[in-house]
């Protein structure tokens, strides 16, 4: 945003500079050339006046001294030529040279004044020439010619262009500084808003954006954002209250039901005991279901208070806890993690996640099977795999496995006690900490559960 604003300010300034400075420079160059021509003509006529009598043979002026003095003071080459095109005096002498073949001399000797630019093979560059006839009484006695190499005038023009360029650069630099400050102040409210939005996104719903003074649009945006945050907070509050209320409202009648059922126990004949035990078990299942739903609801609104947790440490702890049971079931529980794997997760959550995944993996494993936990850091993530050699899940089952109340086929031991909330809770807990979970088919048979959490460098 800042860069874009800067770019637009600078390109606008550059355009204006270009539109103003280029014609200025061109006009300047043109008038510079015209001025030079005017001056040179003026000088040529002055030289004609000074040398006229001598050229006609009546005066005794020092012609070589005259042209040499001219070149010394102005830098132009002056040449005085007699009627046949021979040199009478030349400020840059060239021995025995005849000027008769020069077009401007021919014109001057013919009585015409010649002004123009031509390429000089002798000098190897363009030159400005002015040739004026020295004439009196209708007779041409000779000519005065002044030439300037074009580099003489081009140098001046180039200096002007450089000056114009320098002014442009200073203007651009000033505009850059001002527009940078301006762009920062325009985008500051947006950057603040971005920080506030990120904070709300992390679950800190009480965060509000500062309403900036100044322009209307950022103000309106900040106010609208704050209204949204207030609404979001109250919705989440309402849901949390609902969860708390629902928990109370459901548990109280369940408690009464349970106590009354148990009170029936000594008063029922033996034949009715099975039914009573069944009824108590059902009330217990119902209360487990309420607990599960509340756990899920809490996980869905769980904030994240991440700390640095060594994933390898948690895995080896869970491995120690589960290895006895795995051994009883004849399942090999293998862990392959090297060194420490520091990650950013809310302490305790990864334990819960692994307990759920290991429980599922053990359920799925046939005796003699293998459950493996492997993990490594990959980029910004720590990636854990829990693989089993059970029957695995079809693609459709894998898609649905995170739905609440989804239950796969009965586990290997035929025990089917849950409500299909475990994986849904696990996923919510991971998402709250910025992690993820994915089910893949393992190579061969079985399921490969991939858990990803944010890696960190601190230990």
């Amino acid at each position, binding site marked *: 945003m800042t860069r874009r604003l800067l770019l637009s300010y600078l390109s606008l300034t550059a355009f204006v500079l270009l539109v103003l400075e280029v014609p200025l420079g061109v006009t300047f160059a043109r008038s510079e050339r015209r001025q030079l021509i005017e001056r040179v003509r003026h000088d040529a006529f002055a030289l004609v006046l000074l040398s006229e009598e001598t050229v006609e043979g009546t005066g005794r002026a020092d012609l070589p001294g005259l042209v040499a003095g001219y070149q010394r003071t102005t830098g132009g080459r002056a040449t005085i030529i007699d009627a046949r095109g021979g040199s009478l005096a030349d400020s840059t002498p060239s021995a025995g040279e005849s000027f008769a073949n020069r077009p401007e001399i021919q014109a001057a000797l013919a009585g015409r004044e010649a002004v123009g630019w031509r390429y000089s093979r002798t000098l190897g560059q363009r030159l400005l020439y002015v040739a004026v006839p020295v004439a009196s009484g209708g007779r041409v006695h000779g000519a005065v010619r002044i030439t300037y190499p074009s580099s003489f005038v081009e140098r001046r023009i180039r200096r002007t262009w450089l000056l114009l360029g320098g002014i442009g650069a200073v203007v651009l630099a000033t505009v850059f500084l001002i527009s940078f400050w301006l762009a920062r102040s325009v985008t500051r409210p947006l950057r603040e808003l971005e920080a506030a939005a990120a904070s709300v996104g992390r679950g800190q719903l009480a965060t509000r954006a500062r309403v900036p003074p100044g322009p209307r649009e950022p103000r309106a945006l900040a106010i609208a954002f704050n209204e949204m945050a207030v609404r979001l907070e109250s919705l989440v509050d309402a849901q949390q209250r609902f969860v*708390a209320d629902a*928990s109370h409202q459901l548990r109280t009648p369940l*408690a*009464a039901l349970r*106590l009354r059922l148990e009170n029936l126990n000594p008063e029922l004949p033996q034949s009715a005991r099975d039914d009573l035990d069944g009824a108590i078990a059902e009330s217990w299942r119902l209360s*487990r279901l309420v607990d599960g739903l*509340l756990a899920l609801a809490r996980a869905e609104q769980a904030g994240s208070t991440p700390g640095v947790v060594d994933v390898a440490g948690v895995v080896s702890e869970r491995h120690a806890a589960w290895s006895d049971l795995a051994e009883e079931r004849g399942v090999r529980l293998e862990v392959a993690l090297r060194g420490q794997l520091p990650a950013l997760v809310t302490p305790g959550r990864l334990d819960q996640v692994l*307990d759920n995944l290991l429980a599922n993996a053990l359920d799925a494993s046939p005796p003699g099977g293998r459950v493996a936990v492997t993990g490594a850091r990959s980029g910004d993530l720590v990636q854990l795999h829990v693989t089993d050699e059970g029957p695995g899940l079809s693609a459709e089952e894998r898609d649905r496995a995170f739905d609440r109340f989804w239950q796969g086929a009965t586990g290997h031991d*035929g025990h089917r006690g849950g409500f299909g909330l475990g994986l849904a*809770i696990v996923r919510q807990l991971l998402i709250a900490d910025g992690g993820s979970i994915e089910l893949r088919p393992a190579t061969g048979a079985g399921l490969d559960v991939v858990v990803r959490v944010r890696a960190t460098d601190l230990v």
Partner: protein
Amino acid sequence: MEVLLVEDDDTIAVPLVKGLEREGFTVARVAGGSDALAAPAADLVLLDLVLPDLDGYEVCRRLRARSDVPIIVISARSEEVDRVVGLEIGADDYLVKPFGFRELVARIHAVTRRRQPSRTGDPDPVRIGPLELDRRTRRVRMDGEEVALTAKEFDLLALLAEDPGAVCTRQAILEAVWDAHWYGPTKTLDVHVASLRRKLGDPTMIETVRGVGFRLCDPP
């Protein structure tokens, strides 16, 4: 033992009083916080947190301020923070509704035992075959060798040892040993049984009754 039940909801209080009396307790029931504070001293208080006049926590704090009577909070709130607050302001235990009598009675006994460690009537160490279990010191010996158990493992073994040979259902174990309304995979129970079997060194001592629960084998 005299129990003071502070509970405003009749649907809970009526069956609770009946069941506790059947279990041999003398129960006085009040429906409000101020009545609870005015009631004659009891051996134990069962306190609901939602009361019509006073906040349950406030009642708990005031009761604790004037005596060290054991207090068990019974509440429908299962949030970690509620438990922590309840225990911090002086409750001895925190039981989440719904619960069974078995669990309630176990907690009552545990709390009173903790409160009065020198009380006569403390159970003597239980002996079942090579196993010796001392509830007072929470120690377990196998063939005279001490076995180091975690708190959960000990509670689990102590529960099974209450009635050797009888099946203890998974539900009963989860209710009595785990935090009430702890929600995790029920397989955690199997995890602890497996590690208990290994530590005791005799896998046949704790028998799995498929689909029902576990029992401690009464050796021949």
